[in-house]
């Protein structure tokens, strides 16, 4: 049982320099077993590059990525056996239908009878019979979700998994991730959807220009960015109404209201703090 004491996903001092300030520089973080980790950052910050290393697609220039103690580059086929992956940009074989593609993957991965395909297709109301080439972005995304979850992997690496989904499907996806977490799955989810990360992840890492600028629990990030105000009102009736309107806590004629910054605002704090970096936000 020594695995239990090992981090499910571990990235140590990962460096990949593409030149011109692009790439990832000295990125380190870990994801525990059974934990959901949100990986936030704007476009081009290095989220996908980090994930490519975890998937064993590219070799670190220096540093190390391991999943359950197995090196992500040299042991990639072993790592892949337990991994579910949604790529940031879905691009499947477009010469065949979704049904054929899922069947191909079942056989290619040798999933056999334990496939969750039917259940997932139903959950996301996906009809995979059409040719992939003709599918809309959202439908392809759903197909990607089914493909990533159908072999019931222990570890999920999801690169902007809800892009292209409508709000209803986004919320179904968030529910799916929450269920998987309850079942003890380890999840790394990159996103710029603050809402879904807030709802699903225990800890959040923020990456900017290839460097991790914050890694903390979602709760702590909130805590740090919560301000509360106590307001004294004229009488109890006014206080009661005020408390009801502003979701505050009343004691006598005093009402305490908390202004929670959304994760988005927290995010902006990290990103917008430096005036010289204004162009990065856009």
């Amino acid at each position, binding site marked *: 049982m020594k695995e239990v004491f090992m981090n499910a996903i571990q990235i140590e001092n990962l460096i990949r320099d593409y030149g011109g300030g692009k790439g990832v520089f000295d990125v380190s973080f870990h994801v525990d077993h059974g934990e959901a980790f949100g990986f936030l950052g704007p476009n081009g910050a290095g989220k996908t590059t980090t994930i*490519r290393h975890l*998937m*064993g*697609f*590219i*070799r670190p220039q220096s540093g190390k990525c391991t999943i359950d103690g197995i090196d992500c580059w040299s042991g*990639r*086929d*072993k790592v*892949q*056996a337990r*991994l579910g*992956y949604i*790529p940031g*940009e879905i*691009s*499947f*074989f*477009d*010469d065949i239908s979704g049904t054929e*593609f899922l069947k*191909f*993957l079942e*056989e*290619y*991965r040798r999933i056999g009878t334990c496939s969750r395909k039917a259940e997932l297709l139903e959950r996301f109301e996906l009809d995979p019979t059409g040719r992939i080439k003709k599918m809309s972005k959202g439908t392809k995304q759903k197909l990607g979700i089914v*493909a990533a979850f159908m072999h019931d992997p222990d570890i999920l690496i999801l690169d902007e998994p809800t892009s292209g989904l409508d709000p209803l499907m986004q919320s179904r996806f968030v529910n799916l991730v929450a269920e998987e977490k309850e079942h003890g799955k380890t999840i790394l989810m990159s996103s710029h959807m603050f809402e879904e990360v807030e709802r699903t992840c225990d800890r959040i890492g923020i990456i900017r220009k290839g460097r991790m600028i914050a890694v903390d629990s979602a709760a702590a990030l909130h805590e740090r960015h919560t301000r509360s105000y106590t307001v004294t009102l004229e009488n109890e009736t006014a206080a009661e109404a005020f408390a009801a309107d502003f979701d505050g806590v009343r004691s006598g004629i005093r009402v305490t209201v908390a202004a929670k910054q959304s994760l988005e605002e927290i995010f902006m704090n990290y990103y917008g703090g430096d005036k010289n970096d204004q162009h990065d936000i856009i």
Partner: protein
Amino acid sequence: MISMTLYKREMKGSVKLLVIFGAVIILYVSIIISMYDPEMMKMLDSFVDAMPELMAAVGMKANAADLLGFMVSYLYGFILLVFPMLFCILRGNALIAKYVDKGSMTALVAAPVKRRTIALTQLSVLLSGILLLVFYITILEYICAGSGFPGELDLSALLSLNFGLLCLHLFIGGICFLSSCIFSDTKYSIAAGAGIPALMYVLQMLANVGGNAEKIKYCTFFTLFDPDGIIVGESNAAAGAFLLFAGAVVLYGIGIMIFDKKDLYI
């Protein structure tokens, strides 16, 4: 060592091309073999006399001694070189580089399948296609010659000739496969995979013209395939075929190694 699921999928992808090239080859082979006729040979020879450079460039020489010599002159200089070569170029590029370029390689590598297995599977698909084409050519030639000119064709010489042809195409396939493994961009994979064999073929055409240009033959691997030498059992011709075969194996090995080690930005 290979993934049968992937192999089946890719062989389906080869079918269309194989059918097209099969149809083109049956057309040429049957027509050319049926043209074997001493009278007609005289006419073709007169073409060769009239424009020796042009005819030599496409590998057609005068005075082909017998049916097989006739076939060597009129089939093994152009048609049976170029069509299987086109197959190698098109499939070679599609098997690896196209997947990487389009990003659908993700589906193949994001699974508990070794990259070497993927590359080896794709290579087997290419090799199966080449084998099928050469096998088909052999059967076709045997049937056409047997029905038109019974007893004229030396079967064992035909088999060694087509074994040499197979070695040549395995080598060309090696070039296409290697360039597909090296380049992550279809543009460059096609440029190298098609450009190198095409350039070599053009050099071979120049060398065939003879004269001073003959020295060019040392610059092209097509020289290693010597149909005339093979049918008379020359040891140099056999060595050439062996070199092509050995070279092909080396190219495959390097290709698989490169794909195994390369960074995939998918």
